[in-house]
């Protein structure tokens, strides 16, 4: 068999394009981590805030009447899954901020004037950075929850927790990056983050089960993506892993564990497809 010269050179060029992409993505990711190492306050605050939620809310409702929560679990254990998801969600929602500051201060122009192999490397770097940070923060919360006696998922459960969080973080990061390019400045982005953060938490099953909510709120919570992340994680903490069982008794019907993951996957893909044209236009 003979390989044509053009095929060899095309292979070499593909290889070189890939290594160029790796080099630029690594360099951009490294920059974000260097910033974090020198200004760790956001990381610390990102762990402290959910920790306070966990301790204070856990204490506040520790005497909740028996039978209020499904399976008779303690409120701390119930809350744990919600706070883990809230941690990852808040972290990912902030993903757009560094990009927005780069836009505002003109650093993005420095990147755009360079012969980047693909300008998607700017997005890849943000996704890698935020995913790592969100997972680290979530693991810190899981560790603390475990120390407080709220349990620890088994190995299979841990994989499910990480997988669910990854899906949620990807989806929310896509949303935040889209906003970072669509909104005029960081004030507007922070306003959106501020407005979205807590209402989405309250209108989910993070703090209370659906059965505890008035029907209008139960509807909202049953279509809230956070609920689709919280319930599989709660199931991972509850015992042997079974994604075929019904996790959400929603007003519109029962939702199994698998369904939750499918919804999150579709949401992630949908959001990346949605922001794709915007990113292409802004980074063209």
């Amino acid at each position, binding site marked *: 068999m003979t390989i044509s010269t053009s095929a060899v050179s095309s292979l070499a060029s593909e290889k070189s394009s890939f290594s160029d992409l790796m080099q630029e993505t690594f360099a951009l990711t490294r920059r974000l981590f*260097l910033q974090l190492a020198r200004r760790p306050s956001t990381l610390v605050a990102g762990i402290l805030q959910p920790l306070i939620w966990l301790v204070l809310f856990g204490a506040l409702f520790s005497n909740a009447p028996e039978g209020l929560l499904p399976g008779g679990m303690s409120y701390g254990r119930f809350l744990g899954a919600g706070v883990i998801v809230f941690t990852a969600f808040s972290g990912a929602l902030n993903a757009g901020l560094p990009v927005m500051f780069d836009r505002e201060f003109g*650093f993005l122009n*420095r990147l755009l*004037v*360079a012969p*980047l192999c693909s300008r998607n490397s700017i997005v890849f770097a943000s996704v890698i950075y935020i995913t790592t940070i969100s997972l680290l923060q979530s693991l810190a919360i899981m560790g603390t929850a475990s120390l407080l006696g709220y349990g620890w998922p088994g190995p299979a459960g841990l994989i499910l927790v990480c997988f669910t969080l990854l899906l949620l973080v990807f989806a929310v990061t896509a949303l935040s990056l889209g906003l970072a*390019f669509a909104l005029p400045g960081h004030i507007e982005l922070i306003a959106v983050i501020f407005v979205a953060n807590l209402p989405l938490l309250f209108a989910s099953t993070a703090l209370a089960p659906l059965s505890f909510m008035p029907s209008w709120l139960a509807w909202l919570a049953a279509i809230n993506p956070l609920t689709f992340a919280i319930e599989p994680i709660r199931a991972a903490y509850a015992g042997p892993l079974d994604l075929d069982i019904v996790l959400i008794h929603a007003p519109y019907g029962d939702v199994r564990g698998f369904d939750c993951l499918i919804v999150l996957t579709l949401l992630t893909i949908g959001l990346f497809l949605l922001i794709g044209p915007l990113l292409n236009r802004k980074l063209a």
Partner: protein
Amino acid sequence: MPLIELKELEKSYGAVKALRGLNLNVPKGSLFGLLGPNGSGKTTTLRIICTLLAPDSGQVQVVGLNALKKAREVRRAIGYVAQDVAIDKILTGRELLKLQGDLYHLSPVYRDQRIEELISRLVMSDWIDRRCGSYSGGMRRRIDLASGLLHQPQLLILDEPTVGLDIESRSTIWQLLLELKNKGTTILLSSHYLEEIEALADQMAIIDEGRVIAEGSPKNLKEKLGGDRVTLRVREFSDENEAKKISKLLETIEGVRQVVINQLQGFSLNLVVDDESVLKCIREKLASADLKIFALSQSRPSLDDVYLQATGRTLMDAELELVGQRDMKLESKNAMR
């Protein structure tokens, strides 16, 4: 063959027309100065050449490539030093240069070697490992210049490279630019400092209201104007009536080509005269009208005279006029991606 060829460029930001059919040719190996007041379209032109901005219409040929289609190849060939230094305050200068090297896909060994060369050439060793947030304006401009030069571009583009800099930093940058030019790098720089263009550029274009209105070497442009420039004051601050009276008087002298009343400089009179001998006639004419001379100076035409001739106003007047018209908020929004 020109290294940059711009044809009929048009660019608008909403209702504001930044470029109105701009044409420009930058010869290979030249140090080309783009002179014009703030807001005349210099930065927009440079941003289009650097592929940061697409024109509404027109052709952009850079290093022999269509910059609108082969943007990545063009980016590889150019180094861009922007007007507002975009710098990551958290990184050290060395880390910033490493990042820049990686974005241009330099091998780590070559990248580090170039960084060392530039640290030494731009005298940055004392502060290169400090965070950029602590740098002065001059340091920032040097690190930015180093970023633009790291990959040894064949074309270096600088937008107002020495604006607001101390004399030492300005001199370091000027020396480096002349050195680069002598080594064959083509340099395009924009400036609204006449002395900068005068000191550096071997070719230049005057840009006004989004068009190139004069082009050539600074020497030729000045020579083409001809005549000498005379500034006359009969007292430190005259009034308009007196200035008009004297202007009429001077216009009758043979050899006086033009008399302009400069309101901004206390109604002094700016004259264009054939040669030095006309000064004697001016003195005699004023003496016969019983007018004393407070100050009289004569000079060869300057680039400001070239600008005045082409636009009907001095560069300073144009600056002042445009300052009131500019919407900085809109411009900053337009600069954002």
